[in-house]
């Protein structure tokens, strides 16, 4: 098998700036750079992670451990300060569902817009449109503006678009916690189906029972370091203690 994701020695430092105005920056310079205009902290420290094609990996850790940051490096939203990230094939993220939705557009328009944002071509969206609507159970409301949708409907449509993008590598960040029970089960079944098809999955979630059902491998992060990398059951046990 070939690797799908190669993360080598990635470090990322965040600068927490306290100002967004030139005036304050100039005043700070004039005053002889007294005090700190910015604070730095390490979000990722020398992280390496190899994921083979078809693997299902869960990134675990407490809040602020760097899971989402790592995911953003894999998707290309962020670039590493040092080290390198390589991916193979198309990567699509279910990173906060509905980020690409516009409330004033109809469900139909949003399917097209979001599909294109996630990298689908016009032809692909046309072909999969019916499947997307059917999976989302939106039915006749597809031509209603999404601002009138309930949060469940919104989520279902967004999730449905994302799972139909058919990428090689699927990134999922903390989205399975929402939606009602039946739909959640449907989502999980869909994700498991993707995994069986040989898609690579990288999941971030705090729902430990859920990730242990979906993923085979667990990577435990703490303050930007990889603490453990191995079978999911062991990773979950470690995190719980």
């Amino acid at each position, binding site marked *: *098998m*070939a690797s799908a994701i190669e993360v080598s020695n990635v470090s990322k430092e965040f600068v927490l700036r306290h100002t967004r105005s030139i005036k304050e920056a100039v005043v700070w310079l004039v005053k002889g750079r007294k005090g700190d205009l910015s604070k730095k902290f390490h979000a990722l420290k020398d992280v390496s992670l190899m994921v083979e094609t078809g693997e299902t990996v869960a990134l675990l850790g407490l809040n602020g451990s760097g899971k989402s940051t790592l995911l953003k490096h*894999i998707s*290309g939203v962020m*670039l590493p300060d040092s080290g390198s990230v*390589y991916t193979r094939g198309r*990567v699509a993220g279910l990173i*906060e569902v509905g980020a690409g939705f516009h409330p*004033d*557009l109809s469900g139909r328009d949003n399917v097209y817009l979001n599909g294109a944002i996630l990298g689908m071509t016009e032809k692909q969206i046309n072909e999969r449109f019916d499947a997307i609507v059917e999976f989302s159970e939106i039915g006749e409301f597809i031509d209603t503006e999404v601002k009138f949708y309930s949060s469940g409907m919104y989520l279902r449509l967004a999730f449905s678009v994302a799972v139909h993008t058919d990428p090689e590598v699927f990134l999922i960040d903390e989205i399975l916690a929402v939606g009602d029970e039946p739909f959640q089960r449907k989502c999980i079944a869909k994700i498991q189906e993707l995994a069986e098809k040989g898609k690579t999955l990288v999941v971030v979630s705090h729902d430990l029972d859920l990730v242990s059902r979906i993923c085979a491998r667990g990577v435990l992060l703490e303050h930007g370091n990889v603490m453990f990398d191995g079978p999911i059951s062991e990773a979950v046990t470690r995190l719980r203690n």
Partner: protein
Amino acid sequence: MTTTISGELTRPGLGGGFRDLRQSSFLLKLLVRKELKVRYRGSVLGLLWSYVKPGVQFVVFYVALGVFMGLERSARNPDGLSNYAVYLFSGIVLINFFSEALGNSARSIVNNGNLIKKIYLPRELFPVASVWVSAVHFFPQLVVLVIGCLFAGWHPDMFQLLAAVGGFAIVGFLATGLGLLFGAANVYFRDSENLVDMLLMVATWASPVMYSWTMVQAKLGPVFFAIYQANPITVGVELFHYAFWYPTTDGSAAMPPNLFSLWLPIGLVISLVVLVLGQLTFRRLEGRFAQEL
């Protein structure tokens, strides 16, 4: 290392600049359509606003400048500009296009911050889509202008129509370049959008939109007039005058000297240089957009 589904290993997040735009042309189209749909949502007049606003602007300027301040040629004011209404409006539509394009593209990155923070896509799309939307809004104004011109006895030749295309291209490139530059800078310092607002105010008066270029030449002298002429917006406005206003006059009005042999190429080159610089700056800064927004 044999797998069927995969291609080569690639580094995510490294944009290819304008090359990405061709691949994402479908997304660009959808973004433009979204902006157009969202712009006048919930308003009764809808797209009519694109006609009403410049129309009112034109009347105000025409009455204040043309009539009160005496720029319009009349029996009592033989030194004025003939067909001042057409003169004024042909400049206004171009400035409106520039203002809208630059103003919106400078804000486009911050306004789409939610998306940029979460999903990777070529970020140039947002400023470019803003310019595109402005071009769509420019169209109805152009229609109004042409109708006005026809009433004033407009009979352009091919060359004059090409001059309009040239003027539009110069201003479009300039707006895109500055939009990329200020759009990227705005992520780091929100002062950028205020700077743009100020710049736009200056731009309106730093080109012969309301007044005639001869007044500038008379006051400034050759050196400063050359600087004035090197402004791509000035060139664009003068090209529009040449295309829309000049063919409605008796041809006795003077066009700026060397407009086609010197200033048109200069304006085009400056605009393209700004475009390239804007794109380079944008690419340097875009790597950190996600964490700065």
